[in-house]
C-alpha cells in the first residue's frame, strides 16, 4: 500500500534526523563567522524540520519559564540500544563535561510555546523573528544553537543546545558582583555576539540582561531568548520591548530605535556585573524610565576609570555619540582600554578559560537551574477559529 510505504519513508527520515541531532556537538563545532552567516539551508543546524515530533523527546525537567514559553531538559525518546539512533556513535565522547557519547545520553533544551498563548500575548511576530534569527545565527560560539524547529497542531518547538551552567544571573546574584577580570571576560564574549549580530546579520537583539546569558559546559557564554531579536532593514523600528532596567532612552521615548539599543544595554550589563545592580532603579518603573532618559550614571567610588569610561560611552543618551554606534562600530568597543588585555581572536575561538566552569556529574545535570512549578493543568484551547485565523502565520516555523 502506498500510504504505508510513505509512512516507512517518513519514519526513516525521522530516524535519520534523530541520529543527526545526536551528532551535533556544540563544543566541537564552532563555526567561523562567515560559516555561521551562510545560508541556513546549507548549515548542519537551524532548519525547520518536517519530521520531528514531540514524541521524539522525553521532557525531563523544566529549566526555565518565560512569559509564555517553558524550556525543558529533553532527551531523545526510545533511543535505547538496538535502535538505529543509539547505534550511531558520536565520535567525540571526550568533551569537557564528559558528555555522553550516544543518542540516549545526548541532552537538549526544548523550548515549547503554545500557539494560543503566543497569539493571546500578541507575540506572533516576535516568535517568528525569534525562530528566523536563531536559524540564521545557529553555530555561533556564544549563541545558543537552535538545532531544529518544528511544530504540531497547537504548539511550536525549538530544539536548543542544553547549557548546563545555568544563567549568569544566578552566579551574579550569588556572588553579588563580579570582579573586573570576570566582568571583562564575559563582556568580551558579549561584544563578539553583538558585533556578529549587528555587523554580519543586521540584527538588534533588544533584551540583553544576565537572565538571558547562560554558561555552557566549558564555562563560555551562550545568549538565549531571541524573542525580541529583529532584523533591522534600512530603517528604525518602534515596538517597545526589552527589560525595564535595560531599556535605552530612545525606546522609552518612542522616537525610533535600532541596533544602538544593544550597546546601551551592554553598558548597563557591565555596570550590573561590576556593581551588582543596574545603574537606574526604582520601585516604580516610571521613575526608572525618568532616570534613563536623563541618562546620568553614578558610579561607586572604587570603580576603575576605564570601567567608568566604557560604561559612560555605552550609556550615552545621544545615539550619535554612543560607543558602538559611532563610526567603527563594535571595533571601537573592542579597542576601548577596559578591554586592553583581551586577545579577541582567542576569545572567539574559546581558547580562554572561563572564570566559572560548572562542575557537572553528568551531561544531564540540572543543579544549576532553579525548580519551577509544574505546568498549569488548565490551558486555553487552540480553537478552530484561532487556527483558521492565525495558523498560516506559523507556516514556516
Amino acid at each position: 500500500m502506498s500510504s504505508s510505504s510513505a509512512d516507512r519513508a517518513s519514519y526513516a527520515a525521522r530516524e535519520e534526523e534523530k541520529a543527526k541531532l545526536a551528532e551535533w556537538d556544540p563544543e566541537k563545532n564552532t563555526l567561523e563567522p562567515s560559516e555561521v552567516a551562510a545560508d541556513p539551508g546549507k548549515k548542519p543546524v537551524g532548519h525547520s524540520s518536517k519530521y520531528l515530533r514531540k514524541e521524539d523527546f522525553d521532557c525531563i525537567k523544566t529549566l526555565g519559564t518565560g512569559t509564555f514559553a517553558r524550556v525543558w531538559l529533553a532527551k531523545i525518546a526510545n533511543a535505547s540500544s538496538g535502535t538505529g539512533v543509539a547505534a550511531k556513535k558520536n565520535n567525540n565522547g571526550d568533551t569537557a563535561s564528559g558528555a555522553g557519547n550516544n543518542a540516549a545520553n545526548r541532552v537538549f533544551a526544548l523550548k515549547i510555546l503554545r500557539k494560543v498563548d503566543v497569539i493571546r500575548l500578541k507575540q506572533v511576530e516576535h516568535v517568528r523573528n525569534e525562530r528566523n534569527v536563531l536559524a540564521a545565527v545557529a553555530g555561533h560560539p556564544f549563541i545558543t544553537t537552535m538545532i531544529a524547529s518544528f511544530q504540531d497542531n497547537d504548539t511550536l518547538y525549538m530544539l536548543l543546545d542544553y547549557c548546563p551552567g545555568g544563567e549568569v544571573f544566578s552566579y551574579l546574584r550569588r556572588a553579588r558582583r563580579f570582579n573586573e577580570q570576570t566582568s571583562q571576560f564575559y563582556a568580551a564574549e558579549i561584544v563578539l555576539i553583538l558585533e556578529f549580530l549587528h555587523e554580519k546579520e543586521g540584527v538588534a537583539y533588544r533584551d540583553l540582561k544576565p537572565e538571558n546569558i547562560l554558561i555552557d559546559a566549558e564555562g563560555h557564554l551562550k545568549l538565549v531568548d531571541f524573542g525580541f531579536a529583529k532584523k533591522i532593514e534600512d530603517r528604525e523600528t518602534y515596538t517597545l520591548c526589552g527589560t525595564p532596567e535595560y531599556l535605552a532612552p530612545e525606546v522609552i521615548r518612542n522616537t525610533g530605535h535600532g541596533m544602538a539599543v544593544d550597546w546601551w544595554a551592554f553598558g548597563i550589563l557591565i555596570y550590573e556585573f561590576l556593581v551588582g545592580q543596574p545603574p537606574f532603579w526604582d520601585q516604580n518603573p516610571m521613575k526608572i524610565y525618568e532616570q534613563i532618559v536623563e541618562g546620568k550614571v553614578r558610579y561607586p567610588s572604587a570603580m576603575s576609570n576605564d570601567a567608568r569610561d566604557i560604561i559612560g560611552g555605552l550609556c550615552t543618551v545621544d545615539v550619535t555619540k554612543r560607543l558602538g554606534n559611532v563610526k567603527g562600530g563594535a571595533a571601537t568597543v573592542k579597542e576601548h582600554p577596559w578591554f586592553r588585555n583581551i586577545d579577541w581572536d582567542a576569545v572567539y575561538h574559546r581558547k580562554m578559560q572561563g572564570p566559572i566552569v560548572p562542575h557537572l556529574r553528568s551531561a544531564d545535570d540540572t543543579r544549576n537551574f532553579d525548580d519551577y512549578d509544574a505546568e498549569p493543568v488548565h490551558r486555553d484551547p487552540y480553537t478552530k477559529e484561532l487556527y483558521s485565523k492565525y495558523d498560516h502565520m506559523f507556516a514556516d516555523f
Partner: protein
Amino acid sequence: MSLPSDYRNEISALDREVKKQQPDDILQFCATFFQRRLESQRAEFRLSQRHANTPGMPASNFPGSNPFGNTAAAAGMASVAEEEEHDITSPTSASGPFSPTANNANPARNMDNNSSGGGGAFGNFGNFGFGAPASSRGQDPPASVSAGAMDHPQSFPSNYNMNRRTSVSAESLAPASADDANWKAPYYAKTPDQVARLRTAVSHNFLFSHLDDEQSAQVLGALQERKVPAKDVRVIEQGDAGDYFYVVEQGTFDIYVSSTGKAEAGPAGLGNKVATNGPGTSFGELALMYNAPRAATVVSTEPSVLWQLDRVTFRRIVMDSAFQRRRMYESFLEEVPLLKDLTSYERSKIADALETSKYPAGSTIITEGDVGDKFYMLESGEADAYKRGVDQPVKHYKKGDYFGELALLEDQPRAASVMSTSEVKVATLGKDGFQRLLGPVENIMRRDDPRKLEDSVDPLR
C-alpha cells in the same frame, strides 16, 4: 612588571578621595581609608559566603578558585549593604505607582549625579555613595559611616529587587503598514481653559515634556472626557491590565495598594489607602508604555470627571511624527549630490544626527565669510541667499531645499549669507555628527568616483 590593576584601582579611588577631602593629616587619612576598605571587603566576603547558601538558589559549585571578589586581589569594588531581607516589601517605597504626588522618596534619587561617586568621605564604601541625602554630604566625619552600612540596610539604593526580571513589550507598531496609512489621531474638542489645565497636569511627566509642540497638541487633543457618575467607582483595579492613562479634571480619588499585588474581595480587599488625588493630578502613566498590571486601585470619592488616553493612540502619535520627520530628513538627504552614495541604512543613521531649529522672518541663518560647520535643510518657510556687493538675492530657497552642505566637507568660509524671508524651520546636520557616525564625507564620496566633488554644485559657491 606593571602594577596589578586592583592596586591601581585602589590608588585611584584614594586619589579621588584625597582630592575631594583635602585632608590635613595625609598619613592618617590614608591609613583610615585602607582600614575601611579592608573592613568593607571582609564584610563582603562574609556576605558572599552567606549568599552561597541562600535557599532557592541553585547549588553553589564554584571551582577551586572563586572568581569573585572574595580574594584580596579581586576586591576592586566597593562593598554593598546587606539588603536582601528588605528586597521586596520595602518600607521606604514611598514613590508609589502614581508619580505625580509621590516625590522623591527614593533616597537614591536625591543623590548628586557626580560621576566620581560623591562626597561623604568614606560613606560611599559602605553603600556605594548612594546612601546619604545630598544635603548631609561632606559633613559626615569619615568614621560615622564606616562599614556600618550593614546596620542601615535602608540606605542602600532603593532596595534593589534581586529577583529575575521579566521582559516587557508593547503592541507592535509598524508605521509603514498600508492598512492604517490613513490613521489620524482622534480629536476631542476642549476649551482653552481645559487645554491649559491639561498641559499643566502633564508637564512634569517626562513622557510629555519631551514632545514637540505639534505632538503635544495632538496628544492633548486625543485626551477624551470620561464621566465618573458616582462615588465608589473603581476606575482602575490593582492587578488588572492597564491600557489607559488618566488626568483628574474634577473630583477626588482614593488610591489603595494591596500587598498581594491585586485587589482582593471583601471590605479590606483593596489594601491600604496610600493617597488621595484631586484635580490636576494624573495616574496610570505606565499604561502609556506597555501593558503592565496596575499597581494600585483608584476609587472615586464623588461624581467626577477624568480625561483618558490609551497607549496605542499615544504611542502612535509620537511614533508617526518621529517616523514622518525621519522620512522627510532622509528624502532631503537623498537630494544632496554630495551624499548620494550613502546607503539607505546610513541615511537613516544620519537622520539621528539632525536637529531642528526655528528662525523668525528676517533672521540671518548663515553669514558670508564665516567658517561653516553645519548643513541646513529647509523644513518649512522660505529664505534668500545674498552675496556681498550684489543687491538682489542670488538664490531663493523653499521647503525641501538645502544649503551650506560644503560645510560638511572642509572648513570653508560660507560663500553667501542666507536670510529667512518668512518664519522658517530648518534641520541642521553638523559636520561633527556626520563624521562621528560615518567618518569624513570625503571618504564616502570617494567610494566610486573621486571627481564627484565637481558635480555637487553648491549654489553658494
